């Protein structure tokens, strides 16, 4: 609970900075006297500027109006609470803890577009898993980008965990080796990094499918988790990313990074509507401890703070 509070506090203080930077926020808005059209318009603007998207925003506002009628809401602060509640209801299905009680080694494969925060999230996840008493091994499956391997190796060192890497070679070969090593060493969790790729690069989408297949050959049942790492700065393309990677790989979860900035990651509202893949973790900084399990209520509160 302590961790949750500090994350909430942190997010709030982050948003406070945002508000200072942007000059007033929704807080000022709810100081008004009545629940009227301008208030709804402001709420609509708040959702849109948080990247919720046009469709999700419409749905949310329709539900809010319905609730306001039903519950006879006349005070602006009560309307704000109601909006948070609607957001929480929308996002609650995404809340799901990572299940660590399955096979050993449990294999987690990481995927995502370029620069979304995959390698960094692996570094944080390794720390989190060790905190849960699990042993961890990392696989440097990005054999393409300059110094990607060195970057993961650095995260391995910070965590005191081994990294399986090859000079050159292809991603499939690296993860195959890593899976064998994880089994031989009796490791609890293997996390495989992959190179960033845009879904438009069809040959790269084919390549990552191969990485998945090879993991399955090396260890029956693997990969147990396939997580898409999504940058909270992403606009509506985030939904397209979830669709494309889900179709190519069958996603089991999402990680939403860079929530410590001014972006609010509202695209998860659109995702919750259209492709509800569980959101397992959020990234709130570049440090090793800056990873939190997703909490729908907290997130809803921060979205329209």
């Amino acid at each position, binding site marked *: 609970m302590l961790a949750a509070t500090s994350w909430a506090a942190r997010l709030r203080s*982050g948003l406070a*900075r*945002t508000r200072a*930077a*942007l000059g007033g926020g929704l807080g000022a808005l709810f100081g008004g006297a009545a629940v009227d059209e301008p208030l709804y318009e402001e709420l609509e*603007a708040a959702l*849109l*500027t*948080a*990247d919720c*998207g*046009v469709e999700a925003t419409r749905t949310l506002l329709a539900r809010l109006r319905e609730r306001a009628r039903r519950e006879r809401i006349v005070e602006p602060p009560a309307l704000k609470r109601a909006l948070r509640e609607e957001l929480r209801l929308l996002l609650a299905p995404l809340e799901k803890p990572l299940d660590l009680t399955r096979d050993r080694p449990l294999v987690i494969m990481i995927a995502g*577009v*370029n*620069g*979304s*925060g995959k390698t960094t999230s692996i*570094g944080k996840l390794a720390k989190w898993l060790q905190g849960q008493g699990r042993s961890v091994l990392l696989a440097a499956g990005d054999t*393409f*980008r*300059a*110094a*990607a391997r*060195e*970057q993961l*190796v*650095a*995260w391995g060192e*910070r965590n005191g965990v081994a990294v399986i890497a090859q000079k050159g070679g292809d991603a499939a070969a690296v993860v195959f080796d890593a899976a064998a090593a994880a089994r031989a060493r009796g490791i609890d969790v293997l996390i495989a990094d992959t190179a*960033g790729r*845009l*879904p*438009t*690069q*069809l040959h790269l989408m084919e390549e990552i499918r191969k990485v998945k297949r090879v993991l399955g050959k090396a260890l029956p049942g693997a990969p147990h988790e396939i997580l898409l790492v999504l*940058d909270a*700065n*992403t*606009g*509506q*393309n*985030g*939904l*397209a990313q979830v*669709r*494309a990677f889900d179709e190519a790989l069958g996603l089991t979860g999402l990680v939403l990074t*860079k929530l*410590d*900035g*001014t*972006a*609010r990651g*509202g*695209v998860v509202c659109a995702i919750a509507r259209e492709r509800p893949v569980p959101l397992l973790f959020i990234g709130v900084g*570049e440090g090793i401890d800056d990873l939190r399990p997703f909490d729908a209520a907290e997130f809803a509160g921060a979205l329209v703070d």
Partner: protein
Amino acid sequence: MNYNVGHDFSLSPVLDNLTARLARIVKTIRGEARLTEANIQDALREVRVALLEADVALPVVRDFIAAVKDKALGAEVVGSLTPGQALIGVVHRELARLMGEANVALDLATQPPAVILMAGLQGSGKTTTTGKLARLLLAQKKKVLLVSCDVYRPAAIEQLAAVAAQAGVDVFASAAGEAPLDIARRALEHARTRYYDVLLVDTAGRLAIDEAMMQEIAALHGALRPVETLFVVDAMQGQDAVNVARIFGERLPLTGVVLTKLDGDARGGAALSVRHVTGKPIKFAGTGEKLDALEPFHPERMASRVLGMGDIVSLVEEAHKKVDLEEAQRVAEKIRKGKGFDLEDFKQQLQQMQKMGGMASMLDKLPAQLAGQINPAQLQDDRQLRRTAGVINAMTPQERAHPELIKASRKRRIAAGAGVPVQEVNRLLHQFEQMQKMMKMMKGGNMARMMRNLKGVLPGMR
């Protein structure tokens, strides 16, 4: 590349909506004499939604709509355009204007070494773009030095060193234990004494609200006095682009913007947001991970991409110029009725396509969804069009009006007459049938389905 988003994923519902929406704008207003406050209201709402779905930031959308409204209600509805087409014209022109009139190149006119400072959020593509620029400048016979002031991200310095090696330029050694400002000063001194023409300075990714980091980059700017300070933005960025760009613009005297990851399928509305708040030109587009994937930015193409409809405006305008209006109206009437579209009409259409500059030039103007389906390699272009017209010419008027009459023996005769194999005749009949189906759909107003069904109708379409 043209910026049209081209691959299977472009047929997502959202994108279909964009095209359909804008098509609807034309439809709703068609037939009315001029634009009024009332009849553009709905159309503008559609434009607003289209821009929001393309990730243009809300305040920018608001300003934009106000500007379009202003112009549309003015005297700009001219010539033979319908009011709806005129409105799309205004939208497109205004978008292109906002995006910047023309490409603006790097300006390195200064006492060497000319310093280029890179800035932006985490993961936006600064280090990769640094390598790309180095490669470009090397090709212009410049002596180039790179330096990394990113002492934070693990292996950031190694990454820049690797990128420099790929580009074939020198890199000034730095280490994670050093202060960025010291590194920058020493690199500048080194560049001076070794007569480098250009010094490219990579920096760590930073949040606009990270005060210490923003002070750091302002200090770097002060020490380096760069001629170019480039803000690197991810084309996938959403609404927050306005806030980030505004703060970076306030803290640093930016000279230009680089928009990365345009090889993806994001509409790239962030480009508009960033332009709007910084007022700085977008100088380059990143279109891939490799070092040669950097192109001069073309504002006009980007405007089309954001709208998601290709340069349909100029297509409309050109069509009006070149195509016999009466003929076009005759075909339009047939389309409206959804029947009576025969092979004669099909031939006319092909000929009009030729008048409009042939397939290759049309390709550039097609909506994104459509252009993406066309494989240029397979495009046989105008020769194919002429052959098709030749086959139709070999038919009797009766056959042209009633293609269903054309069975095996007639096919053989037509093929012989046109000097083509029978398969060619079969293909044409198939294309015609598809086209006819499409016309019916167009009548139903279903643009999205029409687009999908265009596959295989035009030569070279996947």
